């Protein structure tokens, strides 16, 4: 069946034949039958750009590969590539276990989490998803099913490899024990960017999860004012009664979602409100879903940007390059770029994935409507500043970077290419992202 596919940002649709295998056997047959235009895996399509698209070729929807098991003794989950973190959390949280890393949405597959080497609010302590993977099986271009462990070159090329080394059929990774399904959260308002960064640098290590939401509309003295949240899994003593993880209760839209299309006005109002609504400083208990996945409560919120879609720009600059971060925040607030949720986070050590995004430093993520005037030039300017500071842009969010910048930002690219070329000499695994960035 030919279908037009996009990522979460709903930009640049391209047609592909979409197939949904129900077993590894069917998956191998599909890979063996891949057309000249190649094949790429797709999970739940939560990457923003063109990573899980393959114009004129084959796209393998992995969500039919949905078996998984959990071993309580070791805390290890073994899951097929198409199992979603939502499924795992729903089952495991009531048993007192949590996934090692959760991105801002739980509607991602295990395969997608490894392929993008996703990070969460605990990156400063626990690194990214790939760091928790004990082994994975990969269906390669040659049709083999390889079992790979950390230390293997193809493992390092697959973690963060955006599906271009093969299809991840199964992943074994460690989970973390939790004692309640609630979060103990400390919320604090900061006056400007410097305070935000100082508080994060000083107190990050005391909490498993930290993140700051930045008000990009505020200018001048208040530039970079933020709402900082730091959280930990609550202990039974901290909560009177711990309700089980209940995602069904989250289907209603939170009250703060601006109605209609997201435009400059509603975004401005939203940013002001979000900041004012936050307490100066408060400790509260919160469920897992509102703490980790506030946006999952709003079904299809990505449609609010209208038919032209939107892009997310997420970059990281290494520790020591705070000036670059400050400069970009200043440009954004001067530019008056309406961004919905702009998030700042301090990263810890990377996982060793050759094309993995995280590195010790500061990461900023912002959403921008694709139709915005001068957006392309603005972001290209940021690319240069980020690359100049030794930083990079996150491929799972990217939909517009160019090949030259890619090579500058990812110094391990050549090594990754050599490993990939050995595993897939004919370039069977291909995506629109791979073509755009000439991977």
């Amino acid at each position, binding site marked *: 069946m030919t279908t*037009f596919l996009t990522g979460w*940002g709903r*930009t*640049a*649709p*391209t*047609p*592909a034949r979409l197939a949904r295998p129900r077993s590894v056997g069917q998956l191998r047959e599909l890979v063996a039958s891949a057309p*000249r*235009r190649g094949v790429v895996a797709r999970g739940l399509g939560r990457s923003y*750009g*063109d990573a899980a698209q393959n*114009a*004129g*070729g084959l796209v393998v929807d992995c969500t039919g590969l949905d078996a998984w098991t959990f071993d309580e003794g070791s805390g290890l989950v073994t899951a097929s590539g198409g199992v979603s973190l939502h499924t795992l959390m729903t089952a495991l949280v009531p048993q007192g276990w949590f996934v090692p890393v959760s991105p801002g949405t739980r509607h991602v597959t295990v395969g997608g989490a490894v392929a993008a080497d996703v990070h969460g609010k605990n990156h400063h302590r626990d690194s990214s998803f790939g760091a928790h993977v004990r082994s994975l099986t990969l269906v390669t271009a040659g049709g083999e099913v390889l079992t790979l462990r950390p230390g293997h070159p193809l493992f390092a090329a697959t973690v963060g490899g955006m599906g271009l080394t093969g299809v991840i059929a199964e992943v074994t990774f460690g989970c973390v024990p939790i004692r309640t399904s609630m979060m103990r959260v400390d919320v604090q308002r900061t006056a400007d960017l410097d305070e935000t960064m100082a508080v994060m640098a000083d107190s990050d290590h005391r909490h498993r999860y930290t993140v700051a939401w930045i008000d990009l509309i505020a200018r001048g003295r208040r530039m970079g004012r933020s709402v900082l949240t730091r959280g930990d899994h609550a202990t039974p003593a901290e909560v009177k009664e711990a309700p089980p993880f209940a995602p069904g209760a989250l289907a209603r839209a939170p009250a703060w979602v601006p109605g209609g299309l997201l435009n400059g006005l509603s975004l401005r109002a939203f940013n002001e409100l979000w900041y004012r609504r936050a307490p100066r400083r408060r400790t509260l208990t919160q469920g897992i879903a509102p703490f980790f996945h506030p946006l999952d409560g709003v079904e299809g919120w990505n449609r609010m940007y209208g038919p032209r*879609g939107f*892009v997310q720009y997420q970059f990281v600059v290494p520790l020591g390059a705070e000036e670059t971060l400050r400069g970009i925040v200043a440009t954004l607030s001067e530019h008056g770029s309406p961004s919905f949720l702009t998030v700042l986070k301090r990263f810890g050590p990377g996982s060793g994935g050759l094309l993995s995004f995280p590195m010790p430093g500061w990461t900023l993520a912002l959403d921008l409507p*694709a139709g915005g005037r001068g*957006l*392309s030039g603005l*972001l*290209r300017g940021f690319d240069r500043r980020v690359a100049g500071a030794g930083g990079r842009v996150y491929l799972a969010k990217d*939909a*517009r*970077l*160019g*090949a*030259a910048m890619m090579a500058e930002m990812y110094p391990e690219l050549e090594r990754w290419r050599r490993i990939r070329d050995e595993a897939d000499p004919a370039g069977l695994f291909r995506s*629109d992202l791979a*073509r*755009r960035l*000439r991977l």
Partner: protein
Amino acid sequence: MKNALGGVDTVLLLGGRSEIGLEIVRLLAGLGAGRVVLAARDGFDPPDLGAEVHVVPFDALDVHGHGAVFARATELVGDLDVVISAFGVLGTQERYDADPAAAAEAVAVNYGAHVSVGLHAARVLREQGHGTLVVLSSVAGARVRKANFVYGSAKAGLDGFAQGLGDALHGSGARVLIVRPGFVIGRMTKGLAPAPMSSTPRQVALATVAALRAGAPSVWVPRALGPAFRVLRLLPRALWRRLPR
């Protein structure tokens, strides 16, 4: 690949000497296009375009060689994000009146060769599942005038062909963009007095790039020519015939 903001990476320009074509390429390169193939007749020295430039020999009238031009271009740069079909000859009506063979040859370039190139491009873009073919049509074809009816009739044919091709490609991911400039002040029209609503190659290129990014099916340059011709098409022939040029 065309990216989320309409930027592209690779461009094939057929008619590598075309002023408008080169101006479009220059703009696209400024917006991030990294690799360009210029297809032109022999002895072509490519200008600096701010991108990696390849030159491929191309003769519009050698229709049997067109397939090889596309094969070479994709070999050099991979997928073709934008193909610009920009070659053409103008020539005066007086000359064509005096030399019908020259008229037939001009039509072969301005129409026949574009049909061949367009069909080759369609095959490549359809297989890719993405990409835009830019066809340089002209208001001369919107309603043919006695002052240049040989040229105008070829452009009318080309415009119709491009519309049909665009419809045929609908749903394939590939697109056709038809550009309809009025009188363009440039090398091709040197010595001719500019008509009303004329434009420069740069203005045509700017409008083309904006239309490319927006994914539009056609663009008139200047824009006002669109509504103007909707009216002019309705003009009685007795009146139309009397237009001085």
